[in-house]
């Protein structure tokens, strides 16, 4: 469960990205976060992974207040979360397999199971046949899917995606939304930030809209 209480985030230059946000996302829910660029979507997601610290308020994830987390504890928080980045953040000197392997190396997973786990994740996003491919050789949609595979390979309880369908055409975007739905169906809490209205048309999931740092109903 993710709980925000009176969370504000003001950047050193005075810009207020979030203003007194209250928010509760129960475990296992799938939630969309919309709003114009600059409305604070990315900031909100980054606060959850402790990539940013709130100026005030408390954020708790499964009962743990992450606003007061010691720096040494932050890596362990991030391992519970799968993050799909807007700009993918893939390593271009490693092939698809090795990119997906990274979270397992970081998390000290048992070496006997890692290869099968990586392949399972690649299979879920339809990239099993491209495990040896370098990211440069992949299309935009494939890179996005590779990023998703890396985000789920260590079976996080929370999956966060920042504009996952950013530059993709409708067909690809729908594929990717189906993937997120299937992760949610096995119990993963999913948060997706998007400004793509077409994704939200026929969804039954909750939609939160951010406007100038405040949550609208």
């Amino acid at each position, binding site marked *: 469960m993710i709980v925000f209480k009176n969370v504000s985030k003001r950047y050193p230059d005075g810009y207020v990205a979030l203003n007194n946000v209250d928010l509760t996302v129960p475990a296992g829910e799938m939630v969309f976060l919309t709003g114009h660029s600059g409305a604070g979507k990315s900031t909100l997601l*980054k606060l959850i*992974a402790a*990539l*940013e610290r709130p100026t005030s308020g408390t954020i708790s994830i499964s009962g743990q207040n992450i606003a007061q987390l010691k720096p*040494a504890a932050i*890596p*362990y*928080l*991030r*391992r519970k*979360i799968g*993050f799909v*980045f807007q700009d993918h*953040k*893939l*390593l*271009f*000197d490693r092939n698809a397999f090795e990119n997906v392997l*990274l*979270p397992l*190396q*970081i*998390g*000290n*997973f*048992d*070496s006997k199971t890692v290869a099968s786990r990586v392949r399972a994740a690649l299979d879920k996003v339809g990239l099993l046949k491209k495990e040896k491919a370098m990211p440069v050789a992949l299309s935009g949609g494939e890179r996005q899917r590779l990023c998703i595979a*890396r985000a789920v390979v260590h079976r996080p309880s929370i999956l966060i995606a920042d504009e996952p369908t950013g530059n993709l055409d409708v067909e690809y975007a729908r594929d990717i939304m189906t993937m997120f739905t299937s992760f949610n169906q096995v119990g993963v809490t999913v948060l997706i930030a998007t400004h793509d209205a077409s994704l939200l048309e026929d969804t039954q999931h909750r939609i939160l809209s951010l406007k100038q740092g405040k949550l609208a109903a």
Partner: protein
Amino acid sequence: MMRAWLTQHAFVFFHTLKRLIATPVTSLLSITVMGIALSLPTGIYVLMENLQSLSGQAASTPQMSLFLQQDAQQNDFNRVKQRLQEESRIVSFQFISKEVALKQLQQDSGLADVMAGLTRNPLPDAFIVHLEHNSSDALEQLRAEMQSWPEVAHVQFDSEWIERLNALLQLGRAVILMLATLLSVAIIAIMFNTIRLQILTKRDEIEISKLIGATDSFIHRPFLYFGTIQGLAGGIAAWLIVALFISALNEELGVLAGLYEVDIHLQHLSLQDSLSLQLFSAWLGWLGARISVANHLWQIEPR
């Protein structure tokens, strides 16, 4: 968990080796620079160890030779002998007659042909005197005293050169210490810079690893391995450079020793010293990497 940890270290180790091999010219150059830097103090140390063992072969207690006058008679000999027996600072002494001395000279050195041509024995009778350890002033005083005896032509301080050598070796040790300190600092600086450049080129990897939950030690590890492995390789390079010099010098020494009909050759570092050299240089590499990592990694925070 333990196995996962070991696997992780093995992975980083081989990954680091691969990285070193992937840039062979750069790696070889850095290793050579470290090797040369380390080979300087190591080489001097090796030379000194050899000199030390040479002086160790010679008498370890102070020793003087008393040469009697050429025309010394039996009663001259007796008087000197009695005075020597009375002198408390003398531990022991032995008499070498001129005949024995000549025979020894013929056997020991390659001058047998020259000796055979002599019509008479040019050598004097002599006493070899072993003394108590004492300050060089006290020994000098005793030498002067014995020199003043009328039967004695000349007193020679045989072990004087050992003392001079020891003083020189002492100086050498100080030089080594200074050189080693300076060059160690240089090696740490080289490693610091190498790792700094690597951190810059691996910025993305570091940032992404932090984003997905890498601890600091996970991120430090490849750089520390790199520093340690390169330091070790530098130590091995230094050992090889010194070995090369020794074998070249030994060839020259062989010619020289052949002329003097003696057996002199230089020894490389002992096994223990060799291991110490490797450990020390690996530590230097690690230290340079550690300082660099501590100085640069905190600057890379994901946002």
